[in-house]
């Protein structure tokens, strides 16, 4: 009676009931209809054979079931965003990756070559990084995502666990061939349950860049690598210049967000890297982790070789205002354009922890194929083409990235610049930064850095809090345990 007497309340209650009913029914339905985490609804062989004989997708929920119409080369709207016709007729494969001018230019050349070679068309979209994951996530949810897309290797496991990825079919590239032909660090995170779910691209090792002029000015030898952390630390202090209280030259460009350091150092300090793959928990919440974090942050808090208030948000190294910086290999090319006046050389950074398990850490991205792709075989052929030896040689020469093929490490056509040679030689020794997240983990680790360097929090407290946060994130994602 209470409700009937008050039409407003009645309307409000009706809306609330409708919302709850919608919430309970719709989501519940999808929850029960979905396969459990990590469970594939189609075996690799079945998806492979389906695509080779017909274009009917093995994907779920209707999306991606681009039934062949026989019209060659037409693009379907749903799921896999590609269509094919029976009998090997040309298909269109949608391909998304985040924006990079150099890579976009190269990829446009590759897609023309691929079309000439196979008759298949690539519908390529280059999406600004800031909106890349928003667009990809929404498209995957709506079932109209691309067939081929680019993911950081660190989150391939997460997407595979969500049931979004198709494995590399043996008919295109066998697991044994992938293991043999590619640098182990570039594929370590792509192999899940004995199958590969991506092929590597944008392989980068973290290297130490010296400003050679500033080194000489400080009486340091820019041709030598640092053998120990202390040696490096002393050089950083020597390279630092102040005017009164104010910093005017940083010994090392490290203050703001040196993710290259906190990705590398904890990774190299543990035999299993930053995360134990078996348990899905972080390895650095202990004395060794504390040592690594303390040594890195001491550069700011004790040695004052850089400050967050010095040239905030600027690239001090590119401006010639820092003696050193740890960056990805690609900056060997980037600085040629953005800092033409800076004479730099590239080196392997000294070990941060007392005991390290590899000299350099690496990151990489990967090309993956959507599980809802109507033509996974053709999509993987395209990815295989992109990661072939010839293509990788082109990527390495023009795209500022390391090749991930073993055979190219010693390729004389690539070994002309001494800085590039350092990068090529670092590949085979690299250990992958193996967190199980990307921007979300970046934020957690940056928080540890900020709390120690800006908040005055002691290393143990900050590291423990960050480690627990990272563990909780993996647990929430269903990747731990």
């Amino acid at each position, binding site marked *: 009676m209470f409700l009937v007497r008050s039409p407003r309340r009645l309307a409000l209650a009706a809306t609330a009931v*409708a*919302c709850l009913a*919608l*919430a*309970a029914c*719709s*989501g*519940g339905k*999808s*929850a029960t209809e*979905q*396969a*459990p*985490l990590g469970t594939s609804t189609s075996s690799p062989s079945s998806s492979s054979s389906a695509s080779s004989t017909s274009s009917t997708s093995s994907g*779920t929920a209707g999306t991606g079931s681009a039934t062949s119409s026989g019209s060659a080369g037409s693009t379907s709207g749903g799921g896999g965003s590609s269509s094919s016709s029976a009998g090997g007729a040309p298909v269109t494969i949608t391909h998304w990756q985040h924006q990079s001018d150099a890579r976009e230019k190269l990829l446009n050349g590759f897609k023309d070559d691929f079309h000439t070679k196979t008759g298949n068309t690539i519908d390529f979209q280059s999406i600004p*990084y800031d909106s890349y*994951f*928003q667009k990809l*996530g*929404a498209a*995957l*949810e709506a079932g109209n995502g691309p067939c081929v897309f680019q993911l950081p290797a660190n989150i391939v496991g997460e*997407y595979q*666990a*969500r*049931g*979004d990825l198709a494995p590399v079919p043996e008919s295109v590239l066998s697991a044994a061939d992938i293991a043999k032909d590619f640098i182990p660090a570039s594929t370590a995170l792509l192999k899940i349950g004995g199958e590969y779910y991506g092929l590597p691209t944008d392989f980068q090792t973290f290297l130490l860049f010296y400003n050679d002029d500033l080194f000489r000015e400080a009486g340091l030898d820019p041709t030598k690598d640092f053998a120990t952390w202390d040696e490096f630390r002393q050089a950083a202090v020597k390279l630092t210049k102040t005017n009164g209280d*104010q*910093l*005017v030259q940083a010994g090392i460009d490290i*203050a*703001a*967000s040196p*993710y290259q350091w906190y990705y590398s150092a904890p990774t190299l300090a543990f035999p299993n890297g930053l995360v134990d793959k078996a348990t899905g928990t972080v390895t650095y919440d202990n004395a060794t982790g504390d040592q690594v974090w303390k040594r890195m942050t001491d550069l700011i808090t004790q040695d004052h070789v850089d*400050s*967050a*208030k*010095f*040239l*905030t*948000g*600027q690239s001090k190294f590119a401006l010639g205002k820092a003696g050193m910086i740890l960056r990805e290999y690609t900056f060997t090319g980037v600085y040629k354009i953005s800092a033409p006046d800076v004479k730099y050389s590239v080196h392997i950074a000294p070990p941060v922890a007392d005991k390290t398990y590899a000299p350099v850490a690496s990151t990489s991205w990967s090309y993956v194929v959507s*599980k*809802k792709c109507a033509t996974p075989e053709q999509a993987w052929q395209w990815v295989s083409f992109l990661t072939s030896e010839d293509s990788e040689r082109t990527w390495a020469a023009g795209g500022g990235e390391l090749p991930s093929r073993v055979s190219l490490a010693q390729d004389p056509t690539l070994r002309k610049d001494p800085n590039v040679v350092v990068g090529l030689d670092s590949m085979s020794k690299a250990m992958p930064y193996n967190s199980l*997240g*990307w*921007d*979300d983990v*970046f*934020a957690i680790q*940056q*928080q540890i850095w*900020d*709390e120690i360097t*800006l*908040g005055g929090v002691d290393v143990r407290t900050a590291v423990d809090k960050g480690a627990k946060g990272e563990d909780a*994130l993996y647990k*929430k*994602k*269903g990747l731990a345990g």
Partner: protein
Amino acid sequence: MTLTQQARTARAAGATGGRPPRGGTGMRRRQTLWAYAFLSPALVLFAVTVIYPMIRAFQYSLYRWPLGSAPKVFVGLQNYRQLITDDQTFHRSVWNTLYFTVVSVVPTVALALAVALLLNRPRLRARGVFRTIYFVPVVTSLVAVGYVWKALLEPTFGIVNTVLGWFGIPGPGWLGDPGWALNGIVLMSIWRDVGFYMVILLAGLQAIPREILEAATMDGAGPWQRFRRITLPLLNPSILLATVIGVIAGLQLFTQVYVMTGSAQQPAGGPLNSTRSAVLFIVQNAFGPLEMGYPSAAAFLLFILIMLVTLLQFRFVQRKFEY
């Protein structure tokens, strides 16, 4: 029955307290139907683009809702509970948002009022030029403005600290200092928004009848009394409008923080969460882990907060004045 007869009958019925005749009701119903017919395109659009997404967002907020093929798990009010009781980053982001709103809206409206009063002086020359100058920041891209202010606030070589240095004032670390970063963003927002509120208040000032002010002058009221007793009360609707718009915009703080504190090398919202706003929190929690449930709950809490604050404003700021 003619329309005039119908109207007479209706008036007579109204006078005796009886129900209006059926003919009048039918016509009114037809008119109502036509009104709805004309309104329907807008209503349908509103329902599709606002109401439906809101209902879906509410649905998401009751789930763990990863994007893609992963299962969606019903968690009831757990997302809300976690946000309200456990998530210190969310609490900090709400605090930052409220701080920004108060610290930016109050001085912006006050400054805009001062500028509007100056520009409303009848003897001021080149009034149009000044209006344009004050309004230029409003029509400039917020992203561009953000980048420019990032450079202005650079602690070592930026103009702001250089000028402070001329007066012997050691400039703060601005965006590199957790204690100052949000104030840097406030400063930029005040500079940008003054022109917008100035236009609203100037329109309000020009709507005040000149006779009332002249009468007050003849009664011996000085400039301060005229402002305090006449201008300010009659300007109340404009001030309320400016404040409500400002508060809603403040509570939705995002672009300034995203542009001024984030980069490929650094996640936005730092240092140490000192500039993370509620909207930024929602975006980062949605599109970092590609999870819609938790940020949808945060969005609903923000929605409730905006609604409450707006209602409070209407309750306490709105005053009716008649002369």
